[in-house]
């Protein structure tokens, strides 16, 4: 499994790098898989509402009502039907790629088990909802699906009489059957929505909407596709004729040929087994638990920035328990905390300038204390020489920092770049420990801990607390979100940054020389 995951990750990272080039990080669909899934879901729901208005649940009327929508009302009903189908197919694609990607990136263990675990039942719901929709068309494909599904259900020794007998002759089929199908086709997506809501419960600021430009792009694609290749019914169902050859929707029905050729009970065992196995993946083996964030009440003023910044809703603000004058205190939920340290980066007390008292912020990671971060920064800057000395702050999920160290570059790493309080940059530059600070981490738009890069960018731009002080020269700050794959680009960005620092130093020397000269002239 580990080897498979590594290969999968390699493939994803390289394909995504290519997509970054053609889409840009902001629009890269691989970073928006969940949000795109939500977007397709809403397209399916809205188009489904429209189709429902015209759908007739009679045995022969079901097919006719869809034929009317497709051909007579092609400009509205036909488009809606095609959107309904293609968005459903796209939803399956997004869902499966999302699942594979989270697996490849190892984002399903420890506290992140919840999203994975709740995502698995969604597979069943999406597939059953989709298949029930195809059933309602009552064309030859629907007939095939009805018979095969009924035979599959009959494999469970629960039903006294074979359900498949209902599809032996047209006379046996009742309009009530379509009413049942409509009910299922509405109830299943509603339940799916409920599970989708649960799925994102542990995510703060979940991405449920793709960027506007990406949404426009994908909706345009679906609309054009609906015009160019409208979804059509196959020949009407006739239970007296065997639907010998059918055009399957392979996004929803890859299992049907298997159901025709393997015993139903075997398929049931395989499906249930695979589902259980998939649900248990987060514990095979369980992830290594790193000690979670700890609140030091002596230094917590209850400002709630950590709670606002935590990407996994692991921090709650609760009434003060220590009798302090502050109203609230941060409380960490161990079962949610992934030990990313983003809360530490948001804490206003996590400032390296503190020297009179021990550097112990309101919240910190026991294994990556902020005091140690300052010590590492000092150690990394100690032996640097030249006028383009750089301290690199990097996250542990991106490039291996060891190879970056040389006489002019010191490296300090942490679980996530979001753990770095902006005051550290001020500290390094104002204490002249280096000529510049360079930040690196996961690829832009794909932070391992969801919001580390976003919050760091906002803090540095002065848009989010704790803000980088205005006195800090932004020219002396560089950043490149390299991830694991962009080694070459990282070094070229770093080289360019160091050249900029050299130029700044030269310009400063020249300015100083000019002011000295003018000073001497005035003296003379």
């Amino acid at each position, binding site marked *: 499994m580990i080897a498979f995951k590594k290969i999968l990750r390699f493939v994803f990272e390289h394909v995504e790098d290519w997509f970054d080039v053609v889409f840009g990080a902001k629009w890269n669909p691989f970073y928006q898989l969940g949000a795109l899934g939500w977007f397709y879901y809403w397209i399916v729901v809205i188009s489904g509402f429209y189709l429902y208005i015209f759908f007739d649940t009679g045995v022969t009327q079901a097919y006719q009502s869809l034929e009317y929508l497709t051909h007579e009302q092609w400009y509205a009903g036909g488009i809606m039907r095609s959107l309904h189908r293609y968005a459903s197919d796209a939803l399956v694609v997004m869902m499966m790629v999302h699942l594979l990607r989270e697996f490849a990136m190892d984002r399903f263990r420890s506290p992140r088990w919840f999203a994975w675990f709740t995502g698995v039942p969604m597979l069943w719901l999406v597939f059953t909802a989709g298949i029930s929709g195809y059933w309602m068309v009552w064309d030859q494909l629907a007939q095939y699906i009805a018979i095969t599904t009924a035979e599959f259900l009959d494999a469970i020794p629960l039903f006294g009489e074979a359900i*498949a007998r209902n599809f032996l002759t047209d006379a046996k089929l009742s309009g009530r059957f379509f009413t049942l199908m409509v009910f299922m086709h509405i109830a299943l997506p509603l339940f799916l929505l409920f599970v989708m809501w649960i799925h994102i419960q542990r995510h703060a600021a979940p991405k449920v909407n793709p960027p506007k*430009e990406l949404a426009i792009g994908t909706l345009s694609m679906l609309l054009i596709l609906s015009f160019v290749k409208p979804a059509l019914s196959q020949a009407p169902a006739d239970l007296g004729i*065997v639907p010998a050859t059918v055009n399957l929707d392979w996004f929803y029905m890859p299992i049907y040929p298997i159901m025709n050729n393997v015993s139903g009970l075997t398929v049931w065992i395989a499906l249930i087994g695979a589902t259980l196995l998939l649900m248990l993946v987060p514990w095979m083996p369980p992830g290594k638990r790193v000690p979670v964030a700890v609140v030091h009440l002596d230094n917590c003023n209850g400002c709630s920035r950590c709670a606002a910044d935590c990407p996994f809703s692991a921090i709650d603000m609760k009434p003060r328990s220590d009798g302090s004058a502050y109203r609230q205190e941060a409380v960490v939920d161990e079962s949610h905390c992934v030990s990313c340290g983003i809360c530490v980066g948001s804490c206003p007390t996590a400032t390296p300038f503190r020297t009179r008292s021990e550097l112990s912020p309101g919240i910190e990671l026991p294994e990556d204390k902020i005091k140690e971060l300052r010590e590492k920064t000092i150690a990394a800057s100690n032996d640097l020489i030249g006028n383009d000395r750089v301290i690199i702050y990097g996250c542990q999920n991106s490039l291996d920092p060891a190879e970056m160290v040389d006489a002019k570059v010191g490296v300090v790493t942490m679980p996530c770049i979001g753990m770095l309080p902006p005051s550290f940059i001020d500290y390094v530059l104002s204490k002249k420990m280096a000529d510049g600070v360079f930040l690196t981490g996961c690829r832009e738009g794909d932070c391992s801990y969801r919001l580390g890069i976003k919050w760091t960018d906002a803090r540095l731009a002065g848009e989010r607390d704790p803000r980088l002080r205005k006195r800090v020269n932004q020219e002396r700050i560089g950043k490149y979100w390299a991830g694991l794959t962009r080694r070459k680009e990282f070094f070229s960005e770093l080289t360019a940054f160091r050249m900029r620092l050299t130029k700044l130093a030269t310009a400063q020397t020249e300015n100083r020389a000019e002011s000295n000269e003018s000073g001497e002239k005035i003296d003379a």
Partner: protein
Amino acid sequence: MPEPRYILGQIVAFTLFAIGLAYFSNAPSYTYHDPEMALIMVSFSHASERKEDCRRFTPEELAALAANMRRPMDCKRERVPVYVEVTLDGENLLSKSYKPTGLAKDGSASIYERITVKPGQHQLIAKLRDSSREEGFDYEGDVLINIKPKELFVIDFRKDLGGFIFK
């Protein structure tokens, strides 16, 4: 304003995605049944006779029963399996025994068989045994059929309608 290459990138990638969606949403086709062949379905549900006949309780047996459990007859619930044979132009297509359903084996036997046959005119004979007899059949039916490719011919059975129903 987004870079033109990003817009172009979207167009190219979404076009490829759309082609994939358009194609795999109804292709390649899948052949579920040989279009040159016809299909005979044997499908019905039938409750066979009880395995043992009812017998009258002896006075001693009745006395041994709790007062609220006393009844004149002792009837075992278990049913015999239903045995079905189908031949087409003398060739055996099906000869199989179907167990009664239910934990006490007292339910109907459920029969659901698909048999692919060559189209054309055929003499079809169906036989069923639902009693404890060891040889012979309790019901028989025969019909001359002219079945076309892909056509479905159903063999049903309704005891109340006299036996086999061909449609």
